[in-house]
């Protein structure tokens, strides 16, 4: 039972971290390697929120807004001019990630930062205590996934985004302002990354390079999921399970690379990943 909870909550955290990357990949057709930096920005929003003495939960909306605003700026200034050179755009996001990391180091130093606890303590489940916060993370992932699905399936923006994902030329020829769709989706993806950064603070140390490890995992998950967010949820469950099981029964070190190894294997066997399932 505890193992199952571990798997579910691990998958939930992977999902929260990867979903913004997936949205950007689908619509802009680039992997945003600055995604990890935006996770870090979100985590530092939690740090600042704590220093200002605000309610720790206020960091969630603050991070989303700050992340989306900075994301919009990055899309407009850096990514949009490189739209016709996707490889250069990907390289630019990598550089942007480094710059953001350095700026954070300049402002806050290299040290690990402490953040206020969002929620501490345990919940009694079947006679054992289980981290209350990990359950909150699970709920957060379900809420984010549900809102994301609603926006994609039920709103005009979601329809426009799907149209751009499926056939951008056709979307353009029907008069869709595809540049605007790309901007808005990038802002949402960046905002979600920052939000995930806040949600990570109780689980990981906050320092200027914290996003890198998560970025690699999220990148692998998106490669396997292609552009389908249901496939992403499935991939998170499978890979989260692998990570938890390997960590528990073999070794935590191997567990942390389970996602990368499994993703490579899946893509070797089925280049379309989980999206065909």
């Amino acid at each position, binding site marked *: 039972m505890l193992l199952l909870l571990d798997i579910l909550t691990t998958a939930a955290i992977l999902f929260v971290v990867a979903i913004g990357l997936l949205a950007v990949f689908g619509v802009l057709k680039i992997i945003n390697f600055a995604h990890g930096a935006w996770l870090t920005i979100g985590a530092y929003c939690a740090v600042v929120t704590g220093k200002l003495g605000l309610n720790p939960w206020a960091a969630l909306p603050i991070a989303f807004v700050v992340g989306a605003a900075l994301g919009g700026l990055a899309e407009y200034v850096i990514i949009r001019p490189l739209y016709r050179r996707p490889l250069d755009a990907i390289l630019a996001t990598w550089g942007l990630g480094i710059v953001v990391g350095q700026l954070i180091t300049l402002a806050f130093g290299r040290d690990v930062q402490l953040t206020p606890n969002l929620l501490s303590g345990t919940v009694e489940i079947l006679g054992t205590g289980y981290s209350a916060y990990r359950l909150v993370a699970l709920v957060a992932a379900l809420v984010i996934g549900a809102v994301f699905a609603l926006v994609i399936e039920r709103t005009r923006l979601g329809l*426009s985004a799907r149209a751009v994902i*499926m056939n951008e030329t*056709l979307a353009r*020829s029907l*008069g*869709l302002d595809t540049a605007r769709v790309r901007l808005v989706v990038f802002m949402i993806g960046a905002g979600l990354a920052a939000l995930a950064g806040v949600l990570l603070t109780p689980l990981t140390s906050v320092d200027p390079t914290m996003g890198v490890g998560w970025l690699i995992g999220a990148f692998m998950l998106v490669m396997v999921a292609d552009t389908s967010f249901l496939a992403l949820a499935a991939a998170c469950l499978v890979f989260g399970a692998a990570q938890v099981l390997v960590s528990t029964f073999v070794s935590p070190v191997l567990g942390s690379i389970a996602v990368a190894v499994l993703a490579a294997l899946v893509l070797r066997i089925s280049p379309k990943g989980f999206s065909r399932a």
Partner: protein
Amino acid sequence: MPETTQRDGTGGLVLDGVSSGYGAVAIVKGVSLRVGPGEIVALLGKNGMGKTTLLKTILGLVALRAGSIAIDGRSVAGLSPARLVALGIGYAPQEQPLFQDLSIRDNLRLALASDRLLPEALDRVFGHFPFLKDRLAQRAGTLSGGEQKMLILARALMLRPRLLLIDEISEGLQPSVVDRIAAALTAERAASGTAMLIVEQNLGFALKVADRWAALKLGEIDDEGGIDGTARERILGHLSV
């Protein structure tokens, strides 16, 4: 053709010395052509002559390299497709023309900038193609070839365009469907005074709906004329290998 429509002057679509292409390759070379308000002009020619590229250039999907494009006296060169569609250009493309995985309803929705106008626009296109009405939730990719073509045209008509660009809408269709499409085009023109530039290889269809024709050969207008007794012979000469 309503008598009030102006045949001369600056109304409608006016192309003057239009050139465009991809990379180092020039596809369209100095095309001058006019489609007056409410006029239907058929653009004919063999494959690879630049017909589709010319339509894409008018819609701003391919950059204009030389010449000018005006709609109702206003230069539209360099405008984005979004602006041109907002100005009233409808486009029925030939290649990958539908969002296969989206419903008929969503395909039609995407032609409009806002859902507020949807019920009225749907009613209008149901008038042309009633079968769409009961199948709005069906995925576009599951329609038959003829139904897909009718959906493409219906989507282009959603905005009630003043200029319609149509790329080989009759391709691969059985005669009864071609007739339905021809009827829809002439009905739309009669109701809204829509100007149309239709790229075709189906001579019978072109002769049926068009007022004038032009033949494109290697990116240039090779020949043009009205739909009269000699049109069939002359066009056949341009379409034969």
